[in-house]
């Protein structure tokens, strides 16, 4: 395991743990979902290390999809704020039983 691999693995694990254990606001969950950006760094470093030109678009593709996902998340934040009146995840309890 190289130092770069360790760094992005631990950053991703921290993001995942933040998503799993810090569950007060929807906005903080969406912020934790930005752990996808560590994967951007990982893909860029992989491309740089291997000097592979054909793979160099993949960080950009990842960034595009990550931006789409972030915007969907913010749209859902607006939708839940309008229907529930708050962005606390505690209030998303209409469907459980």
């Amino acid at each position, binding site marked *: 395991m190289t130092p770069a691999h360790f760094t992005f693995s631990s950053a*991703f694990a921290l993001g995942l743990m933040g*998503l799993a254990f810090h569950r007060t606001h929807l906005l903080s969950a969406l912020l934790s979902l930005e752990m996808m950006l560590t994967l951007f760094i990982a*893909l860029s470093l992989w491309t740089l290390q291997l000097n592979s030109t054909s793979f160099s678009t993949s960080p950009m593709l990842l960034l595009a999809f990550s931006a789409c996902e972030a915007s*969907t998340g913010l749209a*859902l934040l607006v939708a839940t704020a309008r*229907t529930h009146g708050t962005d606390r995840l505690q209030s998303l309890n209409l*469907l459980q039983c």
Partner: protein
Amino acid sequence: MSPFILSILLLGLGLGTTITFASSHWLLAWMGLENNTLAIIPLMAQHHHPRAAEATTKYFLTQATAAAMLLFATTSNAWLSGQWHILQMNHPLPTTLITLALALKIGLAPMHAWLPEVLQGLNLTTGLILSTWQKLAPFALLLQVQQTNPALTIMLGITSMLIGGWAGLNQTQLRKILAYSSIAHLGWMLIVIQFSPSLALLTLLLYFIMTSSAFLSFKLNNTTNINSLATSWAKMPTLTSLAPLILLSLAGLPPLTGFMPKWLIIQELTKQGLAPTATLAALSALLSLYFYLRLAYAMTLTISPNNLTGTTPWRLPSNQLTLPLAASVTATNFLLPLSPPILSLLTP
């Protein structure tokens, strides 16, 4: 919803699954999965209802987490072994992570808690898409990953079957019952996936047929809980008499189609020397049988109080298309005699 936007979203759903099917590179497979998720979210949130918004949010959070985990596992695999190909996964850590991420995506038992709540917040058409088409792409990836540790899939399968059976017992809402039935059926597929992938695929396809006929018949009756099932005799007498056969086919009783996958899976498990696992699987089907039987009892086996005006609704024509329902109900009930040709079609 405007028909142009609807057609774009449906084409996006088709495109995502097609990209995942056609890819041999993990990044492209991940892009297909993301495409699938992003295309169904407007369909889920199209009714501006609190429950729809909540279900969409929950679905989005779980699917985004699962997709990020999948891409993290594949990137780790590339760093460890230099491979991006789907079929060449050798390292045990990325393989386990990928299996868990895909299990979260399709809602297998330790990661199943989102599925009943999300399905409860949707209408029956979107629920049908969610429980059939959305499962295809992750399942295709799950079939291609070579499992390094056989205990993982067997444990996932057994917990899914048991939890799907136990948790469904307490429900009165049809969509939650169908969600737990989906969890239990996916458990049956996972238990056999490493011994015979083609058998798991056969089980998935037959589950699609059976669950579509259940969803479509509930949609024709406009029912979402057990109580309103009891008045379905007034709307559709023929469908009411066929519905217990659909439910018992989902439960897997012998003369119906649902018996075929369970029979073949138990045979395959016994052939592999896993008799205790096969026994546990067969016994867990009894748990599911209980709630299917309760649905059939509420719908057909009791005679509801009858008055003259109550008998008229079935004479009024319904404007819903009934051809898909007729085809899927026929396939749900009468496919068992065709099991040898179907089996030879799928097994190499």
